[in-house]
């Protein structure tokens, strides 16, 4: 099952290495990790998307993360209302008339063109991973020259509904 886990960590050098090393050593299956500064000075926020086989594995994952001395707080936000977004940059083969066509493809995704050259253009898209995925598959026939994705970053919504929702509604 796919889980979204966030961790507040001390902004020390080597922290990412520590955490990925632990995950590797204990054979956790990581889909993506994203890291960046948080609202507090000296504290970074990490978002992990992980695939775990069962609740026991999940519990171990959060406990092992918590055990890291640089980790301040671990939250499994999967079963809560959250905002989860990913950024992708997609360099597509395109010139002349395909350019207009591609423009037409990306508009409904609220993606934008951020670079254009003689024979290629670069699309920037943000959103839930499924949306990014959908756009990539639509662009693939044009020929993708280069692709870079950030991995998901997420946190809880400001307001939590009473009912627990399904992970797929967030990531879809």
């Amino acid at each position, binding site marked *: 099952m796919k889980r979204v886990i966030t961790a507040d960590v*001390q902004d020390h050098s080597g922290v990412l290495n520590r955490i990925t090393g632990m995950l590797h050593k204990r054979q956790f299956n990581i889909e993506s990790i994203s890291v960046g500064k948080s609202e507090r000075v000296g504290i970074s926020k990490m978002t992990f998307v992980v695939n775990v086989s069962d609740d026991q594995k999940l519990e171990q994952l959060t406990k092992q993360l918590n055990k*890291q001395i640089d980790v301040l707080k671990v939250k499994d936000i999967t079963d809560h209302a959250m905002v989860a977004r990913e950024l992708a940059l997609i360099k597509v083969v395109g010139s002349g008339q395909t350019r207009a066509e591609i423009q037409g493809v990306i508009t409904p995704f609220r993606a934008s063109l951020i670079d254009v050259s003689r024979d290629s253009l670069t699309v920037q898209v943000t959103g839930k991973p499924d949306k990014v995925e959908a756009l990539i598959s639509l662009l693939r026939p044009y020929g993708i020259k280069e692709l870079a994705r950030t991995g998901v970053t997420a946190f809880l919504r400001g307001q939590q509904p009473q009912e627990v929702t399904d992970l797929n509604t967030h990531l879809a």
Partner: protein
Amino acid sequence: MSVKVEHQLEQVEEKVTGADVLIQALVAAGVDTVFGYPGGAVLPIYDALYQNDTPFNHVLTRHEQGGVHAAEGYARVTGKPGVVLATSGPGATNLVTGITDAMMDSLPLVVFTGQVATNVIGTDAFQESDVMGITTPITKYNYQVRDLKELPRVVSEAFHIASTGRPGPVVVDIPKDISQTVTTRKDETTSCHLPGYQPNTKPNPLQIVKLADALSRSRKPLILSGAGVVFSGAADLLRQFAERNQLPVANTLHGLGSFPGTHDLSLQMAGMHGNYTANMAIYECDLLINIGARFDDRLTGNLKHFAPNAKVAHIDIDPAEIGKNVETEIPIVADAAEALRALLEKDITTLEHDAWIDTLEQNKRDYPLWYDHAEECISPQWLIKEIYRESDGKAIVTTDVGQHQMWAAQFYKFDQPKRWVTSGGLGTMGFGFPAAVGAQIGAPDELVVSVVGDGGFQMSSQELSVIKERQLPVKVIIVNNQSLGMVRQWQEKFFDERYSESIFSENPDFVKLAECYGIRGMRVEQEAELPGALAEAFHHDGPVVVDCRVVQMECVYPMIAPGKGIHEMIGVTK
């Protein structure tokens, strides 16, 4: 002119180097012994040790690995962090086995490694190794000091992290230029600020109630006690708790001594080479209270058959250990002593469970540990029993890993904690002898007996130099079967007796080896000679090496074969 010179001298006197700051920090941390080995990157530190009339002991081992195992032995018997100092590169990499060993067995160590100067870190400089990269997965935490200002804080945090919560090794990597930097700063108060590290020692009262409740409904209760009981100094509390509620106690390998081995309620060691009564008690109990053990696979055997009928309660200071291997109904994150204190405050009325105790008593009588006396040479199990008898059960015993270790665990009955020093989790050959060096330094008035195999002893016998130099009265008993006994046993059982590279065709003359270091050496080949030899060795006023020739083909029984359940022991006889 003279005025000017005086002024300069005054200034020089006020200045200290990073190395001096380190020494001040070690003194502030209450360090009394450092095990170490000099080299290029730590020359400034060694120079500071030379110049300062250092108020702690430096023990020069003959190999860095000897130093770190000695520090482990010291930590095990004193309960204080063992301190190690080694140089960069090869000095640091030689520590890797010992650091990993300490990590696996939760021993508090603070390891200082030298590092090349900050301006050449990352250039593959002479004697550079990526100590942070190498030690991250094998330490509780590690630091590289990049600014002298950080050093006092880092040292105090390192000792705090190593010795609190679940103990473990902490590495502090100090670049050479940091220890050479001259500063005018003197003693400064330092405080630990580790918001991400707040070990929980007090048990949740509701969980204690749950456990008390489960205990009051149990007809076949059992305590499994591990090293956590020893670390938290909870042995007395455990005994009170077990006696008050008439609870039988099995222990793990590292739990030896956490509950008196000669006590009526003691079932002694469980696990792969544990005894029948302890293992069957785990198989049959309806409530298993694990205090301070981590359900290691050498204890549990096949998890499918581990305590299949039991409700499991697990008291551990490390939350990540609870539920890691065995599903736990009653998790209690706490220090063992705190949890036992809370349990002792509860008024628990246990169900009548005499039948259970009687069954266990009967099993103890019917299925004791057994061995046959050899005709020609010495039975290794008897050798351990003789060591037990001759030392009156009061020795500190250190071992390597293997057959001799299991025999020592089976046949030496520990009534006190902190007397059993062995490499459990990592199973490190070469551990036992240097660990005895550290144990003897930590407990100078105790009888320290290092029971080692002929294989493991040869991995670290260079430390004979240290026991000679310091006149440490360590008694080294070599259980000499001219082979790698446990490897040979596994080859016999699971590889159709194909003894691939496990039998030594040549061994050194261990008596001469001891003598060439200036140490008393003795050889014992027959059982009749043994009692006299041990008495002589134990009463000798200095170190002794006793080479005991034991039966080569002896196996350790009982045994749970890999993949088998705890109830499927082989080598049990009535």
